[in-house]
């Protein structure tokens, strides 16, 4: 007789409650709490009780949500100023803009004046990395040189949006979505054939891990469930990256089309986009696109007379980096605490409302219409000899030509930085670049010839990530970089797994102290984080620190 585990309860009870109450039209607790914050600038126990009543969730669960998300924690005054502490802003000023703004307003981060007139909070990141540093004053996001002075003078103005270009003759990702892929698929492809095309195209996830999208789809398609969902992960939290932001805001139709195609292939009839509250324009842009698609008969019931029905709901997060991790993202989408869950079960079997769910990054889904329209071979041909398809990369404000570029995989990082980015401004030189967000390794100038692709970057301790490229110039203090990254890491730890919850705090404490850092103890801590953590947050934070240990040993003041 094989050994059989004891029957244990599921860990699914809050999700089950959400499912039941959603079916009866209740909003999520997070939605109600966000509304209360917008209206009144703070969350009180009365707000929590109302949220519990309206969402029909337990009071304790609502309380837990209300203490998790940044947006629900910092009190807001009549004028709420949010200063970006992302990596691009750090690279621009070394953090000086934060201190100057706080001093000017007479407020610490997270404080509100007693008369409730002004409040100051930290935000990571506003996605204006091309024009750092960035400050959001009320609904206006201002960025670039002079921003602090303008905000202090109460003269904030909207910052310029970045350029986007493609090196491809025929852009894949920055062409406006025209629903041609869906139209063709519904007319000419069975769901199975579409799934086969996506698998054959080997579309790798653009959110970080590079997992093949087709495999996720196949798992979800095979999973049993009365309903299935497609979730677009628009929680592009990586400081220094603003690619998904502009896909959602400038090209929302392409994303919606990709989601509908995923729904067609998987057998899902509903999709969700989770976008970030740090990108206040994303949700309205997406909602307007959904509305247009409805009007054009491209979303809704029986699309183009095909019998296929698909609809999309846009949900906005509330300030949490880890919510970019797919299980945490699903928790946030359902209005719960955005903590990571161990896998299995995978979202493909057990996602939104406990039902099979595909979670793909925004850019990943934006690749699908091309595959549906032109087929796997054409997609493979976009980056010959490298990872299939094309990739958007973006540069921070240190570059001569910051902005978003669609490039082929396999191009050297140097070519990207110098030919597209144009090198650095003010005659500065690149000391190092961090690629793919705070969990990516840091590439010293000496290794810029590394090809930009999944495996090649991994070989030097780096990653593609979201494709954000943040350059640190020759004046940057690399111990400050370590401190900056670890502060971010500790602040954003969801608090679930022990290594990350305590370890990142300790790592930050080591660098925040004046004292030298004991290298042996640091390395032991990094190993604990890397091998022990539940998700890529704790597991990935050691990567840039290790890069610094390798390449900038002397600057770290080690003992």
């Amino acid at each position, binding site marked *: 007789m094989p050994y059989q585990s004891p*029957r244990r*309860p*599921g860990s*699914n*009870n809050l999700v*089950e409650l959400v499912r039941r109450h959603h079916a009866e039209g209740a909003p999520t607790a997070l939605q109600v709490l966000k509304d209360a914050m917008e209206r009144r600038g703070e969350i009180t126990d009365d707000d929590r009780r109302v949220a519990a009543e309206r969402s029909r969730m337990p009071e304790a669960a609502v309380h837990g949500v209300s203490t998790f998300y940044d947006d629900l924690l910092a009190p807001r005054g009549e004028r709420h100023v949010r200063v970006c502490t992302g990596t691009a802003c750090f690279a621009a000023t070394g953090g000086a803009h934060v201190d100057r703004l706080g001093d000017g307003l007479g407020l610490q981060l997270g404080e509100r004046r007693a008369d409730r007139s002004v409040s100051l909070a930290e935000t990571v990141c506003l996605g204006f990395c091309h024009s750092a540093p960035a400050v959001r004053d009320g609904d206006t996001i201002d960025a670039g040189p002079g921003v602090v002075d303008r905000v202090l003078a109460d003269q904030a103005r909207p910052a310029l949006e970045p350029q986007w270009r493609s090196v491809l003759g025929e852009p894949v990702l920055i062409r406006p979505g025209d629903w041609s892929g869906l139209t063709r698929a519904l007319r000419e492809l069975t769901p199975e054939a579409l799934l086969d095309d996506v698998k054959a195209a080997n579309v790798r996830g653009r959110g970080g891990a590079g997992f093949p999208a087709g495999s996720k789809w196949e798992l979800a398609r095979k999973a049993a469930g009365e309903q299935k969902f497609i979730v677009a992960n628009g929680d592009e939290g990586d400081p220094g990256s603003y690619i998904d932001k502009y896909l959602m805001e400038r090209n929302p139709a392409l994303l919606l089309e990709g989601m509908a195609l995923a729904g067609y292939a998987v057998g899902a009839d509903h999709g969700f986009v989770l976008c970030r509250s740090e990108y206040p324009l994303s949700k309205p842009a997406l909602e307007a696109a959904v509305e247009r698609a409805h009007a054009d008969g491209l979303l809704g019931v029986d699309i183009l007379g095909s019998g296929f029905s698909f609809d999309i709901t846009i949900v906005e997060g509330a300030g949490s980096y880890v919510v970019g991790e797919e299980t945490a993202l699903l928790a946030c989408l359902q209005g719960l605490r955005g903590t990571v869950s161990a896998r299995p079960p995978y979202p493909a079997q057990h996602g939104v409302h406990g039902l099979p769910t595909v979670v793909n990054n925004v850019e990943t889904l934006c690749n699908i219409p091309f595959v549906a329209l032109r087929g796997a071979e054409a997609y493979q041909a976009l980056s010959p000899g490298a990872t299939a398809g094309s990739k958007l990369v973006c540069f921070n404000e240190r570059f001569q030509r910051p902005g978003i570029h669609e490039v082929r995989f396999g191009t050297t990082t140097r070519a990207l930085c110098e030919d597209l980015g144009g090198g650095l401004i003010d005659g500065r030189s690149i000391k190092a670049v961090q690629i793919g967000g705070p969990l990516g390794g840091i590439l010293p100038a000496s290794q810029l010839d590394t090809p930009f692709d999944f495996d090649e970057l991994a070989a030097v301790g780096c990653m593609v990530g979201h494709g954000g490229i943040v350059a640190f110039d020759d004046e940057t203090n690399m111990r400050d970089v370590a401190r900056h990254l670890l502060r971010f890491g500790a602040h954003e730890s969801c608090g679930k797994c022990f290594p990350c919850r305590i370890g990142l705090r300790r790592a930050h404490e080591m660098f925040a102290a004046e004292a030298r850092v004991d290298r042996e103890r640091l390395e032991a801590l990094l190993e604990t984080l890397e091998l022990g953590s539940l998700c890529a947050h704790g597991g990935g934070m050691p990567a840039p620190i290790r890069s610094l240990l390798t390449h900038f040993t002397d600057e770290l003041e080690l003992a």
Partner: protein
Amino acid sequence: MPDRFDTDVTTTCGYCGVGCRLEAHARDGRIVSISPALDGPANRGHTCLKGRFAHQFTRSRERLTAPLIREGGGFRPATWEEAITRIASEFGRIKAQHGPDAIAGLASSRATNEDCYAMQRLMRAAIGTNNIDNCSRVCHSPTSFAMRRAFGLSGATGGFSDIDFADAAIVIGANATEGHPVAGARIKQAALRGMKLVTVDPRRIELADYGALHLSPRPGTNAAVMLGLANVIARDGFVDGDYLAERTEGFEAVEELIALYPPDVVEGISGIPARDLEAAAHIYAEADDASLVWGLGVTEHRYGSEVVQLICNLALMTGKVGRPGSALLPLRGQNNVQGSSDMGALPDTYTQYRSVADEEVARAFEVRWGVPLSRENGLKIPEMFDAAVGGELKAMYIFGEDVAQTDPDTKHVVHALKSLEFLVCQDIFETETTKYADVILPASSFLEKTGTFTNAERRIQLVRPAIEPPGAARTDFDIITTLSRALGHDMGFETPEDAMREIADLTPHFAGVTYERIGRRGLQWPVAQDGTDSPILYGERFHLPGGRGRFAALPYKEPGDAADEEFPLILVTGRRLQHYNAGTMTRRTANLQLLDSDWLEIHPDDARRLGVADGAPVKVRSRVGHIQIEARLTERIEPGHVFTAFHFPEIRTNLLVGASADVNTSCPEYKVIAVAVQPVADRAGVPTLTAAAG
């Protein structure tokens, strides 16, 4: 590592019938903590606030610590010798003057199997009467009666683990999350995991919030609801024809009968919308495996035993019995409701429900006990009180039950107790009943004794002492066997385990029961000679002559009491989480800090009409009595109904309960009482709490 505790003893909880296994931790002779046993089969490492925390009563200053003998207007402490001699001589005198049937005994569903067995042996062999009953009379006797009729044996067909395997369940008249919290939690978890749960209760109980469907029948109309469910099951083709043919008998009459109860007719009787009734029937019938769970909301009615038979019909029609997930689970109120009756503490049966008139059985006991035994049925509890008032019954020996508090028609009970020439009470505290005693014997709580309890899933589990009884208090087993010796009948038991050996010898279903085999996991009877037990009954045949399950064609009849112009509301009584029955134990613990009063639940519409404000005092009148109590408004109860618990003797809720009782078993109709509610000017009439002594 320093030990926090002197002793750690694994035992079985003495509160409700779930039968949680507990680890009792003691220091300096006191219980300091109780934790759930991880391997407890019924509780699987969980317990409720009663089992876990409500142990302070064991060290209450109010514990009886010496025998008390009535003297003048009060009681004086006495030695055991004097008390036992006094009882023996009084029982002897009465038996000589009026015959053995002038004496009656009550065993307790709180006590162990061995205590109850010894008690019935004392009454039968030492006194010579079958006047022995136990308090399951007032709770689950209808269940026992009905399940014996339908299936053959008096007990759940499966166990609590069936809840884990069921695709659907109907919970009828059981507020499990308060009355049986650990079972309730298990049902709730199953519902959250996807088991389709239907709740049937006049109140919207907590489980209803987690279920697929809630049905709120008018109190007393359960029979119509069950007939209506059967109607839909038959109408929509869910009857399992093969099962019917191979395993059952008597469906024809049921088929004709249920045709008279289509959903619209049942809606008229019960108030349950026809479409809800249809949906509930489909949930049950369409499930691969579905269980039926019920509590006192089914049994404590005039036709409670008939409703249980109608519940059994549903399982027989659909073949949903005798396999994992398809079980019939009565939630037993007290820890040993099952066992006290299994042990023959009933006026008409020996162990295993074998009739006292059965010559072969009676002879076996006569041979073992060495005395001639009566073949005449004895008196049931209500009959005992009638006989006391009528003068035929002269003496009672009441053990572990507060009849003056918990039994219906309190005035009549008190009259009966006052009419007795001699009353012996054996308890751990003075109670309403002990006020009328001539001798009070100080006994032991479940944490102070050895023996076995049998839980609601027929599981016999060990009870082990974690502490000593206080002062001169003794274990019930010790007291009963000592008194028996004094009465001239030495049972020959040194320990409760000796009693279990005799039970096993004389009871086929206990043939293989030994303490060693019971161990940590318990044994679910019937237990074969080789120790094999029976988690699931009736997988292949029913325990009836011919082996077939029996349908019962019983029409709906109106309850014993009904609302009318003078008494327009129907009162339903029930339990609250924090307390247990009359509160004798829980009110002597800090549970009182968590809940310190009873109140009357009334729907806001009724309250508005009657001018009753939330929190205001009201007077509740029934045909037999009246009480004053605080009213609280809630939409969990339907208009036309009111609800209260019965944990606070000061309120004396049972003053309202009349003589109406189950037609087959005399179980009182606690659940349907026509009342009138009116506001009163001030709170003076609402009883305040007597301070609970620590």
